[in-house]
């Protein structure tokens, strides 16, 4: 698109030129009319003057020739004006030099236009019966035209000189007027790619403010998204590197240790780290599988009680942790994709056990609408200020378990979403611990 400046410049130049042209034509027309009026008046005056001066011409019988009679000189006009004095009986009594020989007009009095010898004439006639003369004064219309032409030309040349000057002035003014825009552009082009500070709205002209406001909102949005992503990356890096760091450090200890007890201890720690890393890998694979999937299709009837029993059987648990599964769950059946539901329940189950390192009770029961499932543990629960962040991938709160990855709840939530169910977390009110509800949406 054409630059705003060029566009404005062309519009302004065009408009100015048009007004200029209109003014010029107006001047041309009105000065022509004015001049005609002035010249007509002059013709009239000249005719009357000649008539008043021509004393006794009419009665004088001795007229030899027009040239012999000296007419009063009308200084500066003789080239334009031609004068003839005729007697009433049709004799040419006198004429000014340069006046044509033939009669200028047949009209007795008043103005008339004539063509004489191929030239257009404007003639004024006045008859003085008392003196017996008719005075005819005329001038060439061509001369009149030239006069108007000269007048307009005199106006036109300065105008033509002024137009480029005016253009320059408009251009400079536009540059000056556009300076606030240039500041913003400059500010934006010289920014670093990650500079998301808002543009100073107060310093921008009001016309651009909606634009800068929108820009600032966009900046804020991008910044938020970027911070979110950075947090996620940081959490992920932390979760991936920590077990690796443990592995490496313990392996080095095992190599460096001379004492077999120290070495054995280090190797045991390595085993713990390997378990933790493999669980992390398993969870990462699960979450990426869930991410890649859409709404789950292969639904089958699943008896919830049986599924929980099965999961509880294969999940390792410390002796101090007890698990109870409500008998009524054995009669609850969900139509769902088995893999997704199993993923959700297993991660919730593991989560509950992991957060009770010193023992406690995990209770699976039926929810209050009897289609829902509830699991409660006796762990530390989740601080209220962390509630909004829980479920963010890799987020591990204050009461994180030593072997968690921060993915369990995300996986459960995502898996339930895939089968059209929902996860609701709350701290238990009857004792310490977390209450997780799996809500089957209608």
């Amino acid at each position, binding site marked *: 698109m054409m630059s705003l400046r060029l566009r404005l410049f062309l519009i302004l130049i065009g408009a100015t030129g048009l007004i200029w042209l209109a003014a010029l034509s107006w001047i041309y027309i009105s000065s022509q009319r004015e001049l005609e009026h002035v010249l007509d008046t002059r013709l009239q005056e000249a005719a009357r003057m000649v008539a008043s001066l021509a004393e006794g011409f009419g009665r004088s019988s001795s007229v030899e020739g027009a040239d012999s009679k000296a007419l009063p000189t009308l200084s500066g006009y003789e080239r334009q004006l031609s004068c003839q004095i005729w007697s009433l009986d049709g004799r040419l009594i006198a004429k000014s030099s340069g006046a044509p020989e033939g009669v200028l007009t047949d009209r007795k009095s008043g103005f008339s236009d004539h063509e004489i010898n191929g030239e257009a004439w404007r003639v004024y006639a006045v008859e003085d019966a008392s003196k017996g003369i008719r005075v005819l004064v005329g001038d060439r219309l061509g001369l009149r035209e030239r006069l108007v032409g000269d007048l307009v030309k005199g106006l036109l040349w300065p105008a033509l000189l002024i137009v480029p000057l005016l253009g320059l002035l408009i251009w400079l003014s536009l540059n000056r007027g556009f300076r606030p825009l240039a500041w913003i552009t400059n500010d934006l082009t010289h920014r670093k790619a990650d500079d998301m500070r808002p543009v100073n709205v107060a310093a921008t002209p009001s016309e651009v403010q909606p634009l800068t406001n929108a820009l600032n909102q966009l900046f804020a949005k991008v910044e938020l998204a970027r911070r979110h992503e950075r947090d996620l990356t*940081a959490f992920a890096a932390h979760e991936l590197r920590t077990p690796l760091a*443990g592995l490496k450090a313990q392996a080095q*200890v095992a190599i460096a240790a001379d004492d077999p007890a120290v070495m054995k*201890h280090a190797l045991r720690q390595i085993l713990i780290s390997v378990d933790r890393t493999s669980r992390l890998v398993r969870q990462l694979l699960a979450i990426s599988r869930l991410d890649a999937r859409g709404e789950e299709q292969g639904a089958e009837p699943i008896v919830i009680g049986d599924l929980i029993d099965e999961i509880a059987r294969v999940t390792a648990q410390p002796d101090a942790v007890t698990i109870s599964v409500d008998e009524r769950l054995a009669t609850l059946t969900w139509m769902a994709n088995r893999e997704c539901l199993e993923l959700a329940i297993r991660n919730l189950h593991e989560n509950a056990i992991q957060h009770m390192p010193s023992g406690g009770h995990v209770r699976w029961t039926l929810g209050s609408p009897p289609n829902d499932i509830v699991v409660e543990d006796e762990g530390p629960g989740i601080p209220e200020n962390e509630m909004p962040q829980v479920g963010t991938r890799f987020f*591990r709160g204050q*009461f994180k378990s030593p072997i968690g990855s921060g993915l369990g709840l995300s996986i459960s939530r995502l898996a339930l979403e895939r089968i059209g169910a929902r996860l609701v977390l709350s701290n238990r009110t009857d004792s310490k611990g977390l209450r997780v509800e799996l809500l089957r949406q209608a």
Partner: protein
Amino acid sequence: MRILVVEDDPVIADAVRVGLTLGGAIVDCVGTCADALAAVSTTRFSAIVLDIMLPDGSGIDVLREIRAGKETIPVLLLTARDEISDRVTGLDAGADDYLVKPFDLDELAARLRAITRRSDGRTDPCLVHGTIRVDPAEASVTVDGALVPLSRREFAVLAALMERPGVIRSRSELEERLYGWDDDVESNAVEVHIHHLRNKIGRETIETVRGLGYRMRAI
């Protein structure tokens, strides 16, 4: 060297504790910001190994708080993030060095030796006093070029005395350098170690300043 390790991951904390102990250091571990601040305010450490992501806050905040108290103790940040901005933030907050996880235990030990050396104002990696030469990197001591086998605690006593040869170290100060919180300290433990040290490196080398403590005898 008495080192405080602030790390919430039990496996890493354990490895660092055992690894640094093998290198002759006395190591205490804590897992939270609050415990770290409490530890720093009650005990004098030679250096701190500080993890950034802690369960109750950021290690950077702990670092800022330590520095706000005009504490000059060297701090090495242990971080799982390796973005330059994170490292810059850490160093600007007052860290002396940083390591990105997963790290090398030997490198961690070497960096700890380097930052403590720097904070003591030394350039020579070895501590030298007369004919006695202590090499913290090898945890070895030579007298007249001959290697003298020392126990971990004896080494720690000698290193503490040789860091500032003219300065008197009180018994409690030496105890602090020798034993972590979990160690049982016999009331005459320092005297016993000094006695053994004198037997190994020469009776005259360590001077007892009655009522005040011990120092290396001026040459």
